[in-house]
């Protein structure tokens, strides 16, 4: 959810490359046994946390009415996954996520190319983008509800508003970062503008765009769940959590819903991380932390 991050900053790639270098160095020096140790320790950490949550609740250190035992939450979650109507709820959130991310990319990438290729346009429009970007997207909920109602359209408008920036700015940086020598050389081979963009600018900007998409993907999820949570009626995981909270005696469902939201977030992070590494593994500097 580096979301709200500004575009790539000058400091970031540096910090990134050192840390990437460091992890690389660490990884190389690691032996198999230590890797296995990391696995076991990680597992121990997870089990430890679960045990603590379970014990705190069972001993009544926190009222189980507010913090049900973890085992109850897990059982509730498993029960939910067996319920087709809950799967529909999750599916609705995922579908909205996919739409929101696609629209953000479809708008952000071309606009990013435009602004990246024309320095003046970029400089001229920057103030507007800086101002518009810093407005927390959730603050738009009351306005957009009145304009578009509280259905899919409203969710998408707010999600795209929040998620377009990382894609847009990463595209701009990627395009502007294209090696001018390569472009010049291409020109001397009498390649046309469109050809240069396709053969030189696009490949060199692609890793940046991929990073933007990965960052945006988590923002879209967060915003959609938040909107569902606040706008009430709309369907989806956020609405489910909100409805369960409102019912008072369904606290374990609230926890289970949040757990599912975390699983979705993790799955999206991991999936897009893998895709990015798979296609752009040669360019480690663009891989974002956070």
């Amino acid at each position, binding site marked *: 959810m580096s979301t709200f991050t500004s575009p790539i900053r000058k400091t970031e790639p540096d910090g990134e490359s050192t840390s990437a270098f460091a992890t690389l160095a660490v990884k190389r020096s690691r032996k198999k046994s230590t890797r296995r140790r990391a696995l076991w320790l990680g597992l121990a950490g997870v089990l430890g946390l679960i045990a603590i949550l379970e014990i705190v609740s069972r001993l009544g250190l926190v009222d189980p009415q507010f913090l049900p035992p973890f085992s109850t939450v897990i059982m509730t979650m498993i029960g939910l996954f067996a319920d087709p109507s809950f799967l529909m709820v999750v599916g609705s959130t995922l579908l909205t996520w996919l739409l929101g991310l696609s629209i953000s990319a479809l*708008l952000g990438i071309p*606009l990013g190319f*435009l*602004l990246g*290729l*024309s320095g*003046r*346009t970029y400089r*001229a*429009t920057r103030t*507007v983008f800086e101002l518009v970007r810093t407005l927390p997207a959730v603050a738009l909920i009351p306005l957009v*509800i*009145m*304009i*578009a*109602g*509280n259905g899919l*359209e409203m969710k998408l*408008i707010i999600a795209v*508003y929040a998620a377009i920036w990382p894609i847009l700015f990463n595209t701009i940086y990627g395009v502007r970062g294209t090696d001018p020598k390569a472009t010049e050389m291409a020109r001397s081979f009498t390649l046309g503008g469109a050809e240069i963009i396709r053969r030189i600018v696009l490949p060199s900007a692609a890793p940046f765009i991929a990073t933007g998409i990965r960052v945006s993907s988590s923002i879209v999820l967060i915003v959609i769940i938040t909107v569902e949570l606040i706008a*009430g*009626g*709309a369907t989806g995981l956020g609405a489910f959590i909100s409805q369960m*909270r*409102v*019912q*008072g005696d369904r606290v374990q469902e609230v926890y289970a819903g949040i757990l599912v939201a975390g699983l979705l977030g993790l799955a999206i992070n991991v999936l897009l991380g893998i895709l990015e590494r798979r296609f752009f593994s040669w360019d480690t500097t663009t891989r974002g932390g956070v």
Partner: protein
Amino acid sequence: MKSKTQRSIGMLAATAAILALAACSGGGAAPDTAPSEGSGEADPFAPEQKELVVAGYPQNAFASIPVAMQNGIAEEYGISVELQPAENAPAMLAQVISGAIPIGAVNGFFSVPASIEGADVRIIGEVLRGTEDTQTVEVLDESIKTPKDLEGKRVGVVGLLSGHQARIETAVNADGGDSSKVEFVNLPWAEMVPNLQNDQVDAVSVTSIFQDAARALGTQKVIDLAIEPGLWPEFPDAQWLANGAWVDANPNTVAAFQCAVVLRGAEMANEDQEAYEDALRFFKYTEEGIANDIHPNLPAANEPATIIPEMMHELGWIDEEFDIAAITVPLPTNCDA
């Protein structure tokens, strides 16, 4: 080096993109036309639009619709009416204003400000009026005896600046208190009683099963929001709000809806218990739910809800006096023709 034209094209395209983003999904145009006067000439038997989808809640207050549909009343006027379950009043208001749905159940506390701000909306019928003891403010604290005692207390209401809040404030002021000293907290229905129990709020405004739940804790009634003697008789709780442009374009359909649902549907729901219960079954009420149901006050009328803008003006929620009759479309007189 890029050419100047390229640059200006880029500039233009960027502007267009931003404008497109900003204008995303447009918005309803503001009205210049004054509401048409009544629908006296309208012919309820010749609707321009035959199939109507209106927004509301599948609850007893909306029984007039299934009653009109199931007993051939709507058919007499050549219309069919489908109730589309709504989420809440702001969502319905947005849909009515944008024209996504022609008619929705929105109370005056939402429609009056929207109208003042320039939305072209008309009230074409009443849905519900208050029935004694159905909407009340309940407290646990025994030191709160009259509305004035709510000063300095936290009160849970569904929706800030809502009709509930307006009536509570009016009752506090009428009792010699200062309503600006009451702190209102927006709570969903189901959280009213738990929050009262946990002392997060001192009073809650509740109806139906939530009122039962509160009283099960041993609460007392401080204000009756439906019928408060001396302050308001049967309070106009909900009205059918329609899109103004749509009303102007479809006067006969409006008249048909008014005859079939507002007038005759409500009359039959009031008089014919069997038809009323069938309507509840249509709304998927259980037999137990039907047995426990309190028959709502369905007015079969469209009296201008003047008390609402008066109350809002008194409380300073609106700056000017508002003539609600000007946006109220009277019921047709030729329903029997």
